[in-house]
């Protein structure tokens, strides 16, 4: 059987590529902060990830 991480990642396979990319990035960030009860700085990191994925998405749209 595939590992739990692979199983969770595969749940998002059918998502749009941008959503998949964002979910993967955000889950990585959350894992980093999971041990903290009040995860200071997590929102800033999510905002960065969101910015990166959204900008790439707009660029891709302009190219196509």
């Amino acid at each position, binding site marked *: 059987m595939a590992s739990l991480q692979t199983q*969770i990642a595969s749940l998002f396979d059918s998502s749009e590529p941008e959503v998949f990319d964002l979910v993967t990035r955000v*889950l990585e960030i959350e894992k980093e902060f*999971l041990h903290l009860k009040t*995860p200071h700085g997590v929102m800033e990191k*999510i905002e960065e990830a969101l910015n990166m994925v*959204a900008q790439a998405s707009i660029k891709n749209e302009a190219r196509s």
Partner: protein
Amino acid sequence: MRIERVDLFNFRQYFGNQRLKFSRHDEQNVTIIHGVNGAGKTSLFLALNWCLYGEGVDNIGQIISKEAVSRAQRAEIVETKVDVTFHHGGKRYTASRKLVGQKQQNGKILEAKTTAEFVLMRTPPSGVMERVDNPIGTMNTILPANVRTYFFFDGEKIDNFARPEQAAEVEKAIYQVLDLETLTRAMRHLETAAQDLRGQLKQISTGELQKLVEEDELSRTRDTQLHERRDSLKREHSEIQRHLDEINKRLRDFESVQELQKLYDQYTQDIEFAQQGLEKTIRAIRDNVSTGYVRFASQSIDAALAILEEKRQRGEIPSNIREQFIQDLLARQICICGRPFIEHDDSFNHLMHLLETATPTSLEDDIMDTSGRLRGLLDTGNKQHAELNTRMAEQVDWQNRITSLTAQRDDVHRQMKGTNEDEIRGLTRQREEFADDLSANLVEQGRVEADLESLRTRIKELERQIEQAKKSDKRARLLSRKVELAQKAADKIDDVRGTFAIKKRMEIEQETRRIFHLLAWKGEHFQDVRLTDDYQLEVIDRYGLPARPELSAGERQVLSLSFITAMAMVAQREAPLIMDTPFGRLSSAHREAITFNLPILAPQLVLFVTDEELRDKALENLKPRIGTEYRLRFDAGTSCTTIEEMN
């Protein structure tokens, strides 16, 4: 994660260096640590939790070996340290945590650092050992702190999951062990991000750019129209002027008005000259006003100079004695009265004191320079003011001159108009009409110029606003995409999380049922184990009725153990099962079932036991699976425990 060894240094009753190796063998995967009550089993358990997660210890006094402290000299540095070496994902890790303190006069230890230093080293399969940059984060990805409580536990206290009021605990455990907690947090944070971004988007998107572009287009069309109108007026002006020149030329040919026409021409020439003079003066006034802002600061400059002067008079700046002067005296070692002095005598010390209070030469120069510049500015302002007054008077002169010359020329014109000759009268009438047209033309040209000027200013402003709006529009587009993505991702996680949780709950239910039937001795009596929608862990008896209220403490412990093992299996977390006093409350039938089955279910099993809880058949069951075995030997003479490996 499989633990290789634990190294202790001056940790509680473990004085000096002591090591405990854990079996990592696939078949003989059991490590037994025997110890009587108080020998130090719980301390070992604490050492593991403290080293890997920094938990359970508030200060050095709680954990440092009392023997080490008693042997240390006053002010001597003493430390306690635990290293845990383990393997995970093909890599070997060593986690180290230590606390350092200094022995005080009263014999107690004062901690040198407020936080215990935690270091995690990693060695790849064929690589060099390296220090992990984010040790806490890495440790938490290997086995999160909130998850390890389901793997490292006190056997006598794990019956919680089997209690009716603990459904929330069961749900929490499943969410943590199966990483659903990560999904929950991700969903919540993405929703918060989407909400914040929506607020930002609302603030900047007003369709402003569209409105500005439309106004810009209209303004540019109007600008073109006004330019055309100005050109047309200029052409018209030339045409009128040509007619006037023609009329004046014809009038010069009439002998009867020749002198008057000459006079008329002279006045016209003088009026033109005066108009040029007036224009020049107006330009000079404009220049003076646009560059002569200094005079508006004259009051402030006066005030600044007054403050500097006041301070100077009070002796605050510059000081009475200049720094350079004192330094010269010190260098020559001769007083101003001619008396020599030597180092450190009264005169020398007095000069040194003066030197400390003297204003540095550079500051003094800066103040002089500032005063000079301020005075310069004041002079410039005064000159500009005088120049403006002169120009204003000049403007009035030119205007009066034009008025007077125009009146005189009009008088000449009237005289010519009053002549008896019809042709002259006709020409002067025409000249009058053309002159009116010329005047109207100039007024119209002036109006068009003013409109063009204000339109040019507006177009420039529009260009600036459009640039700004374009930036906002670009930002709005990005924000809008971010909102869309954050919401889609949050919705997707929510959707997936629900389905995944149901699927995994069912898998855990199935595994718990299987394991419980292996571990519980009354297998036939308990027909089923269920994990309900609301996370109640339920046992069904042979009559199809809920049997949990009737479960003994030992049976509840077995049910909880089944649930924990099932979770670990479903989550596929390779983590050791470390149990402190696992069989204390269990009857021999349960002990035998557990010792027979648990080594098969867990990848690595570590048991801290008393001899009483592990004997007879239970011990026999475990024997073929034991990889390493230790005895904790407590010496009442030294109050220290020694770890002894058993053969």
